């Protein structure tokens, strides 16, 4: 930790440098190098093997004319907006309910959070079974006498993405609840006392005092949800395999299928570069707000 200059700079702190080699390699070779490599090769006409014959933006023009990619983007947008909205609302409401000095708080929290321990594959398969039109929820409601009841998202291409959304919310809202609960617990009890003395109703206190105070928590949560949305893959593979037809395709699945099945690497690279771009659009403004200006408390 000494700040004094010594002659051999390279060998100072040698053990620490050796210990950091894996991190340095990961950061430079995989994260920077790998991303740059993929972006570079997205401008080539690579098919089965990566080749450096540049074709400019051809892969991107093709990408944005493939119906499957357009469906993937549309699905990602619908899924993204709705899952962001519902995760925040449900997560916050559950946290607010748990924050009412209730009994069995631990039990309830354990129940709301357990799906988060399960993988997307398990989640997708369970909901595939629950939403099975012959045996699942639809069949049960019909057998209760409501013959015309129809809820068959997994085989109806216009609503299949909502079937996936239901499963994703079941799996992920527990985490959001936990983050929100931590945020609520961080708020000074005096705020509540003051609001009560002034006779402000509870819901108004939440809406106009507590939520604005929790801004940092909301922003962090937003980034976490957004980063997760772009990555959605396993859930779709397990629940619908992209079907019916191409109705529930997502970008991550497009990338995988073009790289490892269609043997059209260039398309896969172009699609994954688009994914990278979308993450940058989300992360850069956030990083700028969070770390760029002067640090908020």
């Amino acid at each position, binding site marked *: *930790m000494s700040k004094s200059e010594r002659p051999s700079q390279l060998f100072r702190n040698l*053990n*620490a*440098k050796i*210990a*950091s080699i*894996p*991190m340095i390699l*990961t*950061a430079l070779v*995989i*994260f920077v190098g790998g991303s740059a*490599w*993929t972006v570079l090769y997205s401008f080539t006409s690579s098919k089965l093997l*990566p080749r450096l014959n540049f074709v400019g933006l051809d892969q991107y023009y093709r990408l944005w004319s493939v119906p499957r990619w357009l469906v993937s983007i549309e699905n990602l947008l619908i899924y993204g907006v709705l899952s962001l909205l519902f995760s925040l609302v449900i997560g916050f409401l*559950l946290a607010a*309910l748990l*924050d*009412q*000095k*209730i009994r069995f*708080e631990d039990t*309830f*929290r354990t*129940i*709301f*959070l*357990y799906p*988060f*321990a*399960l*993988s997307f*594959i*398990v989640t997708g*398969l369970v*909901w595939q*079974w629950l939403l099975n039109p012959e*045996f699942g*929820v639809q*069949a049960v409601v019909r057998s209760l006498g409501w013959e015309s009841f129809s809820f068959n998202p997994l085989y109806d291409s216009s609503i299949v993405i909502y079937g996936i959304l239901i499963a994703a919310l*079941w799996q992920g809202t527990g985490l959001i609840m*936990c983050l929100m609960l931590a945020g609520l*617990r961080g708020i000074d009890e005096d*705020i*509540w006392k003051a609001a009560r003395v002034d006779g402000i109703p509870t819901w108004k206190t939440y809406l106009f005092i*507590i939520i604005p105070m929790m801004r940092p928590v909301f922003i*962090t949560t937003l980034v976490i949800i957004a980063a997760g949305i772009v990555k959605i893959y*396993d859930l779709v*593979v*397990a629940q619908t*395999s992209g079907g019916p037809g191409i109705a529930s395709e997502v970008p*991550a699945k497009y990338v*995988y299928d073009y790289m490892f099945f269609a043997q059209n690497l260039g398309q*896969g690279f172009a699609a994954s*570069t688009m*994914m*990278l771009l979308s*993450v940058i659009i989300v*992360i850069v403004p956030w990083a700028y707000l969070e*770390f760029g200006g002067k640090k908020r408390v």
Partner: protein
Amino acid sequence: MSDHTVSLPAGPGTLEAYGPSGPKPRHMFSRRNIFLYGTLIVVALYYLLPLYVMVVTSLKGMPEIRLGNIFSPPMEITFEPWVKAWSSACTGLNCDGLSRGFWNSVRITIPSVILSIALASVNGYALANWRFKGADTFFIILIVGAFIPYQVMIYPIVIILREVGLYGSLSGLVIVHSIFGMPILTLLFRNYFTSMPEELFRAARVDGAGFWGIYFRIMLPMSLPIFVVAIILQVTGIWNDFLFGVVYTRPDTYPMTVQLNNIVNSVQGVKEYNVNMAATILTGLVPLIVYFLSGKLFVRGIAAGAVKG
């Protein structure tokens, strides 16, 4: 804000320290309480329903599934589907059940957890106590890199692993898990070690202890809780991984999640929903056990994993 201080207070001890907000509870059966507990119980039932249906379905025979509804408890409990899921369910031509995937997952998870935590803890320690020029730059790249979609880096890693002859092997996948576990684990350990009293480190330095001496004799014994958090985080994360498994292994080395998906979504043969659900529970069992045993530490792990910076 350092990460390890983000713990979710719950339980009698911490409750007093933070103090829950909201109005004070009044009578036991006030309208407010009925609404509050009513809502919570309904929501809790909704969250439990899929687990219940999974268990119930896996204990029924196929004729009963075809006749009855998925929510009714089994009339005749049978463990046949569990046995079949474990030892003879088919994926394509292979019919040796999930057991192969289970043991593959064990052989992937254990070394990955050990390697990733070993690398990240030493690394976090170096970043916290032995800063050298440029270290923070690499660390920032690492943290920003955690947001890059994996799809962007998948193929370059395939090439690297192919070059060193590890593509398709379990060791290759272990390396991949260690790489992608590094950002969050390094952050976790760096923040933990940073928060430890500086005097401890100084005193050890004065006594002549070096880099490894301080790590093994002072830091390691004092940071068991954070190691437990890291283990929980990694065991569930690696066990639940699907993408890396499907990209970097071959059919005979597929982890459990990949094999499960192949069994359930295989198009051949008659669908045996009870076997599928038994297989699904079996795959979810390891992370569920970890979750229920670890309790608050799990929450602490994901909070640390989620709240960055």
